[in-house]
């Protein structure tokens, strides 16, 4: 008897393995995110299947960006035909295009409704359109409107110095009633978000400077930015000590949302959550472009997700239909209204119905038009992994800015030499 059961189990296992593979004619679409986001993708996919008659299989990925990249890198470097269509973070585009994993989308696609600068910087590779933006992101400054009125401050700060002085004034007064209150929260933990923050502090003349296959980092602008970031925590004390150990997007968001900070640097997604029914700061906040250095202009790091088709896809024409559907005006509008995703199409930023629900899109349009991407290089991830611990080490007081930048520059040079890029 037990033997028979064992056989049955074995049979069941084999048949389960055989039946689980995706249907051959389906477009496999790989997408990750929070449960609510995945549920909405399911809905969208059903609409598409009804409209077009093309079956689509949703391949669920985790929320974590690094894990999503890793999953795609493994499948694509093995030349697998699945997934056919996937979402890519803007920071990976350099790697995916240089690895020749993306099928050009063809010249039939009308590029005019999209932000031309974003396409030029991120999606067009060797003159060919290889991806389209689905969701745009850029760093923003959130601030407490109510506290600004209470302490009689003028409008949002235009320079980092102004931000510092506002934050100090309000923090010293608020501490009497709230010991957890800090002037300014931002992302300083050792992860990709730290690079995005650093580039914004470094301003329009700082950041990674790509000169003839050499990456310069140890510049006066970058040293000044790092010293300023360090001082925000240690000298001025307007950012909590946990900035460099814990603060990622969600930690920053919950800190600000609990009413414990005057300013917050975050991506646009925080807006809808700050204005949600359970938020302590509902109706008390406003957004502004990030401050600039007193002699420069405001910089916002470009983030967001793009959509592309795999070179190894065996259902390319159908896959293209899916891409067209997802980047269409109607779908982008739905993504905005349901998930608060800022559309990759600029024509939506003047849709009256959209502006009524999301008035902050007016400011965002300007932010996206000037947002700066991280360097679009195939080895960007490696560079980022080298720089993250160095910058984080400055925030922790382990290195001086100059020391950290010089060391990072040297390690990057070694990496490029190893790749034979120099």
């Amino acid at each position, binding site marked *: 008897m037990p033997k028979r059961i064992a056989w049955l189990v074995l049979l069941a296992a084999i048949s389960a393995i055989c039946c689980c593979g995706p249907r051959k004619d389906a477009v496999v679409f790989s997408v990750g995110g929070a449960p609510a986001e995945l549920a909405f993708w399911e809905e969208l996919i059903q609409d598409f299947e009804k409209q077009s008659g093309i079956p689509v299989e949703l391949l669920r990925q985790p929320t974590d960006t690094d894990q999503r990249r890793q999953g795609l890198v493994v499948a694509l470097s093995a030349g697998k035909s699945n997934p056919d269509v996937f979402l890519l973070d803007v920071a990976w585009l350099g790697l995916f295009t240089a690895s020749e994993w993306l099928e050009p989308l063809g010249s039939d696609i009308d590029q005019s409704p999209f932000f031309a600068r974003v396409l030029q910087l991120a999606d067009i590779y060797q003159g060919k359109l290889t991806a389209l933006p689905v969701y745009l992101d850029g760093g923003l400054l959130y601030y407490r409107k109510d506290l600004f009125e209470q302490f009689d401050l003028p409008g949002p700060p235009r320079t980092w110095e102004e931000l510092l002085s506002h934050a100090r004034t309000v923090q010293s007064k608020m501490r009497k009633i709230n010991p957890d209150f800090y002037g300014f929260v931002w992302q300083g933990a050792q992860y990709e978000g730290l690079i995005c923050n650093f580039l914004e502090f470094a301003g329009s003349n700082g950041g990674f400077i790509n000169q003839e296959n050499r990456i310069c980092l140890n510049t006066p602008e970058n040293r000044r930015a790092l010293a300023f970031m360090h001082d925000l925590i240690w000298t001025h004390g307007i950012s909590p000590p946990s900035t460099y150990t814990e603060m990622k997007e969600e930690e920053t968001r919950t800190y600000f949302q609990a009413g414990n900070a005057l300013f917050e640097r975050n991506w646009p997604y925080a807006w809808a959550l700050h204005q949600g029914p359970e938020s302590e700061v509902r109706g008390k906040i406003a957004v502004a472009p990030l401050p600039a250095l007193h002699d420069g202009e405001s910089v916002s790091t470009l983030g967001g997700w793009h959509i592309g088709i795999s070179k190894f896809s065996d259902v390319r024409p159908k896959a293209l239909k899916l891409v067209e559907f997802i980047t269409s005006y109607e779908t982008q509008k739905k993504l905005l209204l349901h998930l608060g995703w800022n559309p990759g199409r600029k024509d939506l930023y003047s849709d009256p119905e959209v502006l009524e629900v999301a008035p902050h899109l007016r400011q965002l349009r300007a932010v996206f038009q000037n947002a700066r991407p991280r360097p679009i290089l195939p080895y960007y991830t490696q560079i980022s992994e080298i720089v993250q611990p160095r910058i984080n080490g400055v925030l922790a007081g382990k290195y001086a800015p100059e020391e950290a930048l010089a060391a990072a520059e040297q390690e990057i040079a070694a990496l490029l030499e*190893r790749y034979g890029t120099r």
Partner: protein
Amino acid sequence: MKTERLKKPLFHLPGNLARMPALDSERWIAFGFMVPLLLFVVLFILIPVLGTLVDSFSLDVTYLPKRFLGLENYDWLLRDPGFWQSVRFTCLFVVVSVPLEIALGLMIALVLNEQLPMRGLLRACVLIPWAIPAAVSGRVFELIYNYSFGAANYLFRVLHLTDGPVNWLGSEAGAFLALVVADSWKTTPFAAIILLAGLSSIPDDLYRQAKVDRATFIQRFTRITLPLLKPVLIVTLLFRTIDALRVFDVIYVLTGGGPGGTTTSLSLFGYHYFSAGDFGYGSAASVILFLLAFALSIIYIRLGHFEQEVA
């Protein structure tokens, strides 16, 4: 006292095949039963390990043409400050966490070996941390160490031990110790259970005799328990050392390698390159980790062999 080497080593290395008698039918059947396991070992262990070794000799980056490099990856590794940082951290982690876990595990095992009420229940409870996935226990410790609402800071505030909250993961030493504590909490039970199995195999007669001879508790422990437990202790050490060498999940969750990259373990270092699509360099780092674990295993096995001489 003259000692004589026992013929039986603690670990059986592959015997001399030539001297084996011809395979009769019974042996064939026995061999047949082993085939699935051998296949498993070859498919899932031997081939991937060899694949990693081969990969470590080449430039294997997704966007560059693959080419053979020989030992060049290793040469670059030895000049990479990030690599040395991770080697230092990993070794220090092993040296601090393994003895701590074994010592605590031995203490727990000694207690559980006594005739206590509800001994079975206690033994099961001790195993709970070991049963929790490392990523989950990492998250739990993240909540304990959290700066603004963590349990540790709450406790310190209630007991008036510090002026303000402590940033536990904020300094190199703090983050290191926090990781050791989190890892020990999870893996001490494993050491305890293996050592407990070893303890229960020591005959009670020996202790009774020792008591007749008026041996103190300490004497009984050092003269009976420790020598008889040594083979099991060494196996536990071996398991724990290899496990601690490849520490990954608790760090990935708790510090992400920070602050300033000071808690990046060798496996996290390799992972960064794998996930960025640089398979050759990541493989080279993994091979070094493998060699380190292999060398330590050999040392332990020798140690185990040596202990058998006291007959």
